[in-house]
């Protein structure tokens, strides 16, 4: 009886402590998601005196016939397919480099981390200037190649998305470096000492101690980068507005454009629903691929 009373008190306290976060989650996550689901089967508009009507799958039918949606989906997947391995790989490389016990590593750690704490909007505006035909990037290329290369990075359909990829990876790599670094530091130093005594070289140490030791870190990084890459929006919004010729349009960008600028709440909800399912599917596949296998 006593134990139960105590348990009840603890439960109550626990719930009370969860309540603020819980309420916020319900209000700003579950309610909007549910609304989005429901709205995507209607003809809801941002501003209209017309009553809401149920239209079934019309929005999804429209989605299938919308070339901008397919381009956006392709751009989004392409972005993720490049960014996920490139950014996580580069972050790991940086983490291994700054993980040595040497004077000045803290300076490097800080330098690599600076872009992460800078607002992505500011970073995007700066890079837009750097990518201009007479901007810093082209000036450097001119100097290195002797005026051979001249690219209008953000206005060329073939270079706009890669340019944004490069800039995005540069901006976010520091964050994942720190996570890799945290992972690296959980690996006991004795293992390396033992390996050294056994005569293992640098590569073998990495392959057989570091890599297996980073298992859970790897899963975490994979999932977070993938979700961040799929929801690419700010850079596009600030730097290209989806252009030129939809070359940088992404699913989230299209949803925002359609939903707010064009006031098509229902269609934007349908796009968001598809995006939700896409992210869910990718995350589940990743969970399955990185599951704990019983040996």
């Amino acid at each position, binding site marked *: 009886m006593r134990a139960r009373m105590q348990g*009840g008190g603890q439960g109550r306290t626990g*719930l009370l402590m969860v*309540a603020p976060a819980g*309420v916020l989650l319900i*209000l700003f996550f579950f309610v909007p998601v549910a609304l989005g689901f429901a709205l995507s089967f209607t003809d809801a508009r941002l501003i209209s*005196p*017309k009553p809401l009507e149920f239209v079934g799958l019309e929005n999804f039918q429209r989605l299938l016939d919308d070339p901008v949606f397919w381009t956006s989906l392709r751009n989004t997947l392409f972005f993720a397919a490049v960014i996920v391995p490139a950014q996580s790989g580069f972050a790991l490389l940086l983490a291994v480099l700054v993980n040595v016990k040497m004077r000045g590593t803290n300076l490097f750690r800080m330098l690599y981390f600076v872009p992460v704490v800078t607002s992505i909007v500011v970073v995007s505006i700066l890079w837009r200037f750097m990518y201009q035909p007479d901007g810093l990037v082209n000036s450097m290329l001119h100097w290195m190649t002797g005026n051979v290369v001249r690219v209008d990075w953000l206005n060329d359909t073939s270079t706009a998305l890669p340019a944004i990829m490069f800039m995005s990876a540069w901006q976010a790599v520091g964050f994942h470096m720190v996570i890799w670094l945290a992972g690296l530091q959980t690996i006991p130093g004795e293992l390396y000492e033992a390996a050294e005594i056994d005569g293992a070289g640098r590569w073998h140490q990495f392959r057989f101690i570091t890599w297996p030791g980073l298992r859970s870190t790897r899963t975490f990084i994979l999932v977070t980068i993938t979700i961040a890459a799929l929801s690419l929006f700010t850079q596009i919004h600030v730097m290209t507005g989806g252009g*030129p010729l939809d070359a940088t349009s992404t699913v989230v960008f299209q949803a925002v*454009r359609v939903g707010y600028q064009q006031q098509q709440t229902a269609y934007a909800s349908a796009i968001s629903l598809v995006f939700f399912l896409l992210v869910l599917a990718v995350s589940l596949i990743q969970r399955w691929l990185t599951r704990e296998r019983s040996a």
Partner: protein
Amino acid sequence: MRMSAKRTLRWGVAAALVAAAAACGSDNAGGSSGDSLTLWTHNAGNPQELAVVEQIAADWNAAHPDKKVTVRAFPQAAYNEAVVSAATAKKLPCILDTDAPTVPNWAYAGYLEPLDIPDDLLAKQLPSTVGKYQGKTYSVGYYEAALGLFARKSALTAAGVRVPTLEQPWTGAEFDQALQKVKAGGKYPITFDLGTGDTGTEWWTYGYSPFLQSFGGDLIDRTSYKSASGVLNGDKALAWATWMQGLVKKGYSPQKSSADAFADFVNGKSAMVWSGIWNSGSLSKVDDGVVLPPPDFGNGAKVGGGSWQWAVSSSCPDKATAMEYLRTSLTAKNMAAFAQKQNVIPASEEAAALVPGWQPGGEKRFFLDESKELAMVRPPTPGYPYLTTTFAKATQDIVAGGDPKQILDRAVAEIDRDLKSNDYYGF
């Protein structure tokens, strides 16, 4: 334990909701509180203009201490969102300013009340400063804006090109000649800067649809407002699209201008730039700078019409006072104050007579005459937000080198689908 947990959760949720409601409620942005009326304006980022708005309110308050008007200013970028959210929450202010092309949309949505302003007062206004939708007046402005083709006179005379006037603008062929000759002179990296560096939407429609209309096309068929077919993808629209694309392809205009094309013009990077009255203040920095009307591509030279205007919300509890406020504030003195403080066109001749430079023959007079003769308001339909975003994207794609026919056909299909799915917005 289960019961108590549930109850706690319920109480927690209830408490949070009450707190949230209280937070919203305390910030009463509503139409009127007590004896005062609230007024919303978009120009928090523009101290000169805000000062005039506040002066008008102060004059009113001095005369009507029992019905005071409270001014609340918003940054322009967040203004429309603020109005739409306030309307959804039924907390619109009594008096608000609106960008002219959004007026029909807000009127259709039921946000705005038709204005009760006598015709003889409205008759004094420049036509494009009065916002009409379906025969009713919903908004009225103290000033107007206009586009202009800013050029260096020396560049034109050196190329042996006639300087056009409002009475006799360039023809399309003449303009093409001018571009060729100025470019051949080789003095300016940019011959004619379209000003495509703006990433927003509205400039693309405000700035480039007058060219389309001069070619004889339009965003929507203005006889019915039920379709864009034929007007936005007909031969004339196609000619416009090919011309726009040609400006970039022939190297007259950059595909993407820098963020401030007018500064490039002032700094001697371009011989001509397509811009508006808002930059005319810097024109004096160019020794031989002139402002010219746009070319006439066959259907008359055109510039965009409609700037910020004032309206009364339908949820205002004291509409009579709000109407009276607008009515009594539409004086030549107030309009002159706006035109004095910044580069805008005073909305009536009476006002123009009060401001140096705006009288007939004055140095700024060009814009008033241009607006009177060439201004064409953007299509006054509730479907405008969709029209403008679709048109702006189509124009961006055209300038970026896409296939004009395909782009315009797709834009027409999208616009017509939107019109149909909205039951043609009541037309």
